[in-house]
């Protein structure tokens, strides 16, 4: 019984969730018994800083501070979930996250642990929308995509879910197309941080998920 | 060269909304303003003449072609382009929206001042009055100001500037 993927769209300024859903294939678990079901939003939010740092790293090439992320997730966990999850289980693959090597050229390295994802994108162009797998938390991989106005799309998948990057990019691209139509609607409020309530939007995301990620 | 004596604009409420008279030898200009009663009188006379002439031309026009009663929504009508008397001639252009532009010039065999009037309508009037949302488009604001009783005029300095700039070389 595979664990369904968690997909979220997070607003650019307030980081509040515009849209969240689980993408499940036929044989996956049903909603109640997804382990750590209510931890997903926290993982998504904690990965936001990784994305911001990746973006800033390209522009102002600050040395990326790994411990900062580790500390942050720990605070999250202590603040709300102290009973369910042991914080020290967080393991961060160094090569997972942007590394600044000796020479000042910032090396954008996104090699994820090879055995799990056969197709690894070793160097994405700077400023690319698709950020690949940017974070790993206790067996869950966070892959992400950023639109031009910094709205973040995130997919949290289980470790043993084989992620094909080309399909993932197609999924994100179609979601970007849908999000654009939502944004272009004049009745979407200027701040644009109200959750997306359109049922058709929801149906289409699920079909794209099934089409690209699960098959 | 043609000599221009005066330039008039009438709207479809028979009001004169703009008039200017050129004294060619003294090169000084008199413009229709609210208090210049002399110009008001002249405007009434001018409109009376244009109105009766166009009614006359309509009757003759209807005689010329066997005018069968067409759809009463779209009556067949035409308008005169030029009347000349011994010493001067009046050129007019009536737009479909009922605006009448007319120039009073000295007697000349040059054919109608159609192009000049079209230019004034299409370039100057359109730019400064029609497309300017802060300018009236209908100068009769109430019922009492229609049928020739109106008193409002185009008070737009750019409009004056362009009209003089256009007519100055023709003086």
């Amino acid at each position, binding site marked *: 019984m595979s664990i369904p993927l968690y997909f979220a769209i997070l607003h650019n300024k307030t980081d509040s969730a515009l849209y969240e859903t689980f993408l499940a294939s036929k044989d996956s678990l049903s909603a109640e018994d997804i382990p750590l079901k209510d931890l997903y939003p926290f993982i998504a939010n904690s990965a936001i800083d990784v994305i911001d740092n990746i973006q800033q790293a390209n522009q102002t090439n600050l040395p990326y501070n790994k411990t900062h992320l580790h500390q942050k997730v720990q605070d999250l966990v202590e603040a709300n979930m102290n009973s369910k999850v042991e914080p020290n289980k967080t393991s961060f693959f160094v090569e997972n996250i942007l590394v600044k090597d000796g020479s000042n050229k910032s090396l954008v390295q996104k090699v994820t642990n090879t055995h799990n994802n056969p197709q690894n994108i070793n160097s994405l162009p700077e400023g690319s929308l698709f950020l690949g797998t940017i974070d790993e938390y206790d067996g869950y991989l966070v892959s992400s995509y950023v639109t031009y106005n910094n709205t973040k799309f995130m997919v949290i998948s289980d470790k043993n879910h084989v992620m094909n990057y080309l399909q993932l990019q197609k999924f994100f691209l179609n979601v970007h197309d849908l999000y654009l139509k939502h944004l272009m*609607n004049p009745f979407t409020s200027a701040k644009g941080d109200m959750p997306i309530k359109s049922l058709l939007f929801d149906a289409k995301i699920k079909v794209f998920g099934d089409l690209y990620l699960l098959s | 060269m043609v000599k221009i004596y005066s330039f008039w604009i009438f709207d479809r409420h*028979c009001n004169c909304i703009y008039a200017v008279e050129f004294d060619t030898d003294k090169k000084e200009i008199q413009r229709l303003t609210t208090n210049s009663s002399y110009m008001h009188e002249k405007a009434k006379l001018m409109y009376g003449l244009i109105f009766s002439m166009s009614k006359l031309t309509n009757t003759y026009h209807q005689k010329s072609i066997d005018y069968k009663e067409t759809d009463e929504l779209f009556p067949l009508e035409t308008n005169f382009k030029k009347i000349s008397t011994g010493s001067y001639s009046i050129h007019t252009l009536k737009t479909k929206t009922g605006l009448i532009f007319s120039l009073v010039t000295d007697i000349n065999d040059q054919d109608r001042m159609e192009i000049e009037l079209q230019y004034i309508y299409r370039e100057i009037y*359109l730019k400064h009055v029609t497309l300017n949302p802060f300018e009236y488009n209908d100068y009769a604001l109430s019922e009492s100001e229609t049928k020739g*009783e109106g008193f409002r005029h185009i008070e737009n300095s750019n409009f004056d500037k362009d009209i003089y700039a256009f007519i100055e070389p023709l003086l």
Partner: protein
Amino acid sequence: MSSNISSEKTNESSTVSQVDPDYQKEIFLKQLGEHVYQQNMKKINAEFFNVTYGSFVRTLIDFYDSDADKCNEKLKAMGESIGSRLIDDFYSKVTNQIPRCSNLKDLGNTIAYVGFKMYINTVPRVIFDETNRTIKFRFESNANIFNKFVELPDDIKEKKLYYSNIVSGIIKAALAGIALNCDVEFISDTLLDDQYTDIQISNVTRIKDEVPMGQ
């Protein structure tokens, strides 16, 4: 009636001599509309127009705190202030090639083939109802460029806001400019889940030319 522009075109269609004059006039109007649009009108991006109009309408709706009737009236009033100016702009751009309208059908065709084409580059279908003398302009679903990205929120949809009601005001005032008094209103709108967007002109009457006092 034929002028230099379409002289060569009319001889082609004159070979099809048995075509009734009405249809021939329609072809001429169609060509005239396209010709005037290509030659005499400066162009701007349709989506830019659409987005600008959308943002302004939303501000209007916020100002009237989504009272649909007030918005409909306000849009119509603004349309009327535009229409009375637009008719002058129309005749100055069309110069003297426009054939004379001899009946209501001609009027409908002129507005559709020349008026709409010149200004918003779309040609609606004209439905002329002989008995009760009404003209209806029918826009297919995405032909009406105003509602390209628009999806009305539910509360406004129930209150029947006609999003592009400014057009009805424009037509009404433009016809008043050429001494034709009429009622123009939206019969249906695709944004309100109808099949087509229909604008109807009804009970057209002639405005008597004014006669100076004492005549």
